[in-house]
């Protein structure tokens, strides 16, 4: 019997990308995707199940589909995309319910991969230049997204401890850039002039979106339990990031930032507190443990920024790709109608 995989957050960028990559793996038999919204990319054989944000139907799905692997990508790290209450529901309550379902008696789950973020390390003046997976943060978490991710990691640890027979992998992704993903940092870099904080030129680290998907697939293929930082090699001053993008920085006053960023918010660029502290102190994470586990990156930090800006130039010239719309009836027809000749086992 092939692998049976449950992907949470199918409608999100990562969930969709991972499901697409899983569809190409011949030994993956079943892919069930869970989300509150319909998938935004074209999927061939992934079964989409609508759920509310905190996965109250999860226990039933796990039991009914007998999945052996859960890829938990439904983790909100962009605090500008929704209210902090919704984020709490998705990140904390969703993860809690997910692990409750996965550790229910008779559960078939043997592999769990959770997508977390290097936001859990925070960003402060006392920080070391490089955080290792064991480093503790030096400042208390005072933004909702950071607090929720720390709570999530607590659930992951508890689950791993209570279920030693399950491979639990926690990936902490650095700031992601790429052709398709939209984050507060990518929005800032798309502006004609890149906002910075006056007098600060912190060193940042980026990881390419392809490396993120490759990292998730690497973990699914190789079973490497543990916590891993995922980030490109090297740290880049923010001014150099702007320079690679061919742009100049426009310094905002480093104090009283809620006033300074108000005009930006009007044009749709919101600078969340975690991005502002990043633009002050930066953050570097040691990616060597994941490399030792055998993962090979395809982009360095500088390479990621360059790939991002090249994709940005292309998009600004030829426009967005046509959006995909999920039509339930059509998708059901292709997956389940007897009229469709399916030849999966050939």
């Amino acid at each position, binding site marked *: 019997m092939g692998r049976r995989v449950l992907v949470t957050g199918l409608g999100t960028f990562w969930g969709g990308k991972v499901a697409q990559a899983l569809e190409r793996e011949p030994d993956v038999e079943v892919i069930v995707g869970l989300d509150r919204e319909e998938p935004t990319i074209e999927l061939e054989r992934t079964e989409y199940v609508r759920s509310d944000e905190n996965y109250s139907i999860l226990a039933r799905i796990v039991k009914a589909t007998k999945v052996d692997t859960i890829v938990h990508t439904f983790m909100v790290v962009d605090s500008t995309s929704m209210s902090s209450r919704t984020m709490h529901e998705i990140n904390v309550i969703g993860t809690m319910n997910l692990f409750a379902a996965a550790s229910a008696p008779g559960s078939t789950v043997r592999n769990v991969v959770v997508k977390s973020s290097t936001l859990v390390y925070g960003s402060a003046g006392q920080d070391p230049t490089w955080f290792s997976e064991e480093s503790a943060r030096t400042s208390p978490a005072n933004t909702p997204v950071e607090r929720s991710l720390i709570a999530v990691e607590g659930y992951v640890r508890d689950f791993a401890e209570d279920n030693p027979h399950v491979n639990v992998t926690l990936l902490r992704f650095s700031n992601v850039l790429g052709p398709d993903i939209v984050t507060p940092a990518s929005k800032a870099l798309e502006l004609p002039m890149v906002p910075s904080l006056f007098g600060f030129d912190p060193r940042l680290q980026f990881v390419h979106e392809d490396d993120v998907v490759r990292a998730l697939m690497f973990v699914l293929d190789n079973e490497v339990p543990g916590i891993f930082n995922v980030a490109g090699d090297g740290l880049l*001053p923010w001014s150099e990031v702007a320079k690679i993008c061919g742009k100049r920085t426009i310094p905002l006053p480093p104090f009283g930032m809620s006033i300074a960023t108000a005009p930006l918010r009007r044009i749709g660029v919101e600078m969340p507190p975690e991005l502002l502290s990043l633009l002050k102190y930066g953050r570097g994470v040691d990616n060597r443990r994941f490399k030792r586990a055998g993962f090979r990156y395809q982009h360095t930090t500088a390479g990621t920024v360059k790939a991002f800006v090249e994709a940005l130039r292309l998009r600004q010239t030829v426009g967005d790709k046509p959006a995909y719309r999920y039509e339930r009836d059509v998708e059901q027809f292709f997956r389940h109608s007897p009229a469709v000749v399916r030849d999966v086992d050939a």
Partner: protein
Amino acid sequence: MPPTERKTTKTRSRALVPVPRTAEPEALPDPRESDVDEWGRSEHMREIARRMFDPMYRRWFRAEWEGLEKIPTDGGALLVSNHAAAIPSDAPVIMHGIETELGRPVYGLAEYIFRELPVVGTMWSRVGGVTAQPDNAYRLLREQKQLVLVFPEGTKGTSKSYNERYHLRRFGRGGFVEIAMRAGVPIVPIAVMGAEESMPILFKLPGLAKAIGAPYVPITANMVAFGPLLGSVLYFPAKFKLKVLDPITFDVAPNQPRYSRSKVMDESEAIREKIQEALYEMLRERRSVWFG
């Protein structure tokens, strides 16, 4: 897409089949635009700083070294020195001296408070300042085999008043010894004479310091002599003499999670005493603050 057309034939590697170790992959393209390294140091900026500081070093302070050959020309080493002056002048003099004489970069560890200041923090980092943090020091010393300068007295050294000059303060909690032990590198003590007189503190304003969150707010002799503006940046032309003492190696294994507290404190105190003794000797021989 029919399955026969699937391009990926990757199958899942189970534990029985070890993942073949591929040879070291070729270097990834890394389109950097500046030479700012992971610590924030830029050799280009450092070069400019050296050119600007050189007249200060040669003409103003007339820095003179003794025992410079004791500083290793390769491999990591922790340089430990006494610390003085309201705005410490010893750090740039030591860093400039070693970089110009030995051609090796020096990273200076300092309290994180620098990093929190706009402009100053960025400049400080570009010329080789690194937040004093055990992980940073270990990586610089052990993995990158660099020279790292540390002032174990910290602000306790720079905030002392003129009448306490050349009385070394407590050397922290001996953290610098533990880091050198863990990194397996020698400690090279340096005694600096002259910094104390380059910007002496007459008295301090603790109330103001508390209000603005600074470690101390000094009123210096320089402010009295040159006025409040120029005096807060211009040093007195005190003669600098620097004496490198014999490197100290520790007979303990590197990379231990813990080292004996008593051994660490003993070594730390011994180093403090060595620098203190060297200073007393240098002061006995000094005829003039300005001419050495």
